């Protein structure tokens, strides 16, 4: 098959599969935020990629500080928290200034957030320059380990994956085990009724949106460990993340996880055997065709409409 021996094919699958896992982690973090904003609130946030870039730039700033004060080995955890907080706060303000006026007009939200994404990109460009910047990684994130002779697994990939798992579990706990999550779900299911039992639905909207943005910020922090950040970094991931959310079934967190995994793996493995662009085309095309046949996505919530 393609002139490789079976053992080589096996190794390729493991290694491409693993690089797929890194992509999966970033996509998952991006898509989790979107799944909350789009799946739960029905708001299309085209600036979601820019919130990820915001988190990434925050991490880069922290790493520069850490280099100045010689704390490179410790800063990263704080950088993740800071990335979350910065994106959360900006998201909160954006909801207050922009999104809340447009809940009844989803298509207009799409255009307005696209405008927001242009503005944010230009702010990044004016502040940090058009060139890509990267964070100074702590030593414990560098290098790789080799379970066998031919397999080479980078540690930063493992770290990103661990982060994605932690955040996912956190989101699941938040949504299904906390009072806030209860209020969010109640508001999504029946806004009027939720208001009637005393839930401040406007506040729920604001916090939900900000939370989605905050998770995008964490995705950005994770992103700095595997690639460098430029002003348009976020926009490269936005279509993919939307595809992940729609493909998985907008309202289902489990669906989002499954489809992020499927899409990332398919892309990564196909890109090895086809060219990089054809791998992406084949993956996206498959998703679009499946979505045309099953518009509600793979794991649709069973609702009576």
């Amino acid at each position, binding site marked *: 098959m393609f002139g490789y021996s079976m053992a080589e094919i096996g190794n390729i699958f493991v290694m491409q599969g693993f690089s797929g896992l890194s992509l999966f982690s970033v996509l998952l973090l991006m898509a989790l935020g979107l799944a909350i904003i789009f799946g739960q609130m029905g708001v299309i946030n085209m600036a979601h990629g820019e919130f990820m870039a915001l988190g990434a730039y925050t991490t880069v700033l922290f790493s520069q500080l850490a280099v100045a004060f010689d704390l490179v080995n410790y800063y990263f955890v704080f950088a993740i928290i800071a990335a979350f907080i910065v994106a959360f706060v900006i998201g909160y303000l954006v909801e207050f200034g922009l999104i809340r006026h447009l809940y009844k007009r989803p298509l207009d*939200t799409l*255009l307005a957030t696209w*405008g927001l994404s242009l503005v944010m990109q230009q702010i990044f460009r004016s502040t940090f320059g058009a060139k890509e910047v990267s964070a100074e990684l702590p030593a414990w994130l560098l290098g790789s380990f080799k379970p066998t002779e031919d397999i080479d697994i980078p540690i930063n990939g493992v770290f990103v994956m661990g982060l994605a798992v932690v955040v996912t579990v956190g989101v699941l706990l938040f949504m299904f085990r906390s009072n806030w999550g209860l209020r969010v779900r109640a508001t999504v299911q029946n806004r009027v009724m939720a208001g009637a039992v005393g839930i401040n639905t406007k506040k729920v909207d604001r916090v939900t949106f900000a939370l989605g943005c905050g998770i995008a910020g964490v995705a950005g922090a994770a992103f700095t460990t595997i690639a460098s950040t430029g002003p348009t970094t976020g926009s490269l991931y936005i279509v993919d993340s939307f595809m992940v959310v729609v493909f998985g079934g907008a309202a289902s967190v489990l669906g989002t996880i499954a489809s992020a995994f499927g899409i990332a793996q398919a892309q990564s493995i196909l890109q090895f055997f086809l060219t990089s662009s054809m791998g992406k085309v084949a993956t996206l095309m498959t998703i679009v065709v499946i979505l045309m046949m099953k518009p509600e996505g793979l794991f649709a919530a069973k609702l009576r409409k």
Partner: protein
Amino acid sequence: MNALTSKLLGGKQGLIGLVILSAIIFIALPLGLDLFRLGLVGKYLTYAFVAVSLVLLWGYGGILSLGQGIFFGLGGYCMAMFLKLEASDPVSTKIQTTPGIPDFMDWNQLTEIPWFWVPFQSLTLTILAVLIVPALFAYIIGYAMFKRRVGGVYFAIITQAIALILTILIVGQQGFTGGVNGITDLKTMLGWDIRDDSSKYILYYVNGLLLIGTILVCRYIITSKFGMLLLAMRDKEERVRFSGYDVSNFKIFIFCVAALISAIGGAMFTLQVGFMSPSFIGIVPSIEMVIFAAVGGRMSLIGAIYGALLVNFGRTMFSETYPELWLFLMGGLFIAVVMFFPNGLAGLYEKYAKKYRLAERMQKIFSSGKPAKADAEATPTKTTGAKA
């Protein structure tokens, strides 16, 4: 005036709007601008086709397509393939390994023209392809999605993904498509040099006439019973469905019409600008074309043309002097139009024209040719274009 012409011209007010637009396109701009600037206007007017198609699709139909660049691009590529084949005759390509095929194919070790390029050796087939291929593609997309009642934001996202796929495909398949540079060095059409001054003027006027023709056709569609149904569908889709109409077929039809209009714009773009590249297909150009329509007024056909002209003039002006500022301005424009002027320039005109009874005054002083901001026939319907 009989019923049909009055319908097409949109009454006295519509007629005035149309006459002013024609005066600007055919007289004022060619007299006032040098050939280089006029060429830019010609380019903007090809985008105006897409903006007009979006008024039909988004303003009246409530269907937001973020992939109109696909059809603009397909139309443009069809035309570019014909012109490229003509430009690649064996004499002028004799230094290639295989003379007589386009240069980028030669660079990519192709030795003959691929099968899907063959029809583009004939101008008749090319014009047919410009008209049919994008509409057919739109039919396939529309059939697959509207029959399953996919609409609103899902439709927007999926059309956007298709625009992305097409861009990656064209960039990746350099040997067949010219890759990221697109199809360049287009020279003649049936031996007629499209690059000299006189043909630039001719193409500009052909483009303008086609645009005016498109507006008339769109007005016919909007004022017909179908146009009424379109509006009804936008505002209360379920009610139209329960009245016994097949909503999806109407949506497919209007999507195909919009694709066709965009494709004509694309073909005219190739002819006037002299090349076609994937940078006119992708996500960014497609969504920018929506903002042209939004700035002009999503319910106004003529407004969309002014929108396309103004936004592009603004872009050219600002990116010449303050390139940094342009993205801020463009982003701000998206936000401001949506938040404060959902009916765009046409909406503003409606509001203030009523206040100062501009239309009546303008009829009196019409001979002095005072420019109007927008199409007077734009109905002040509450814009509920957005629907999930």
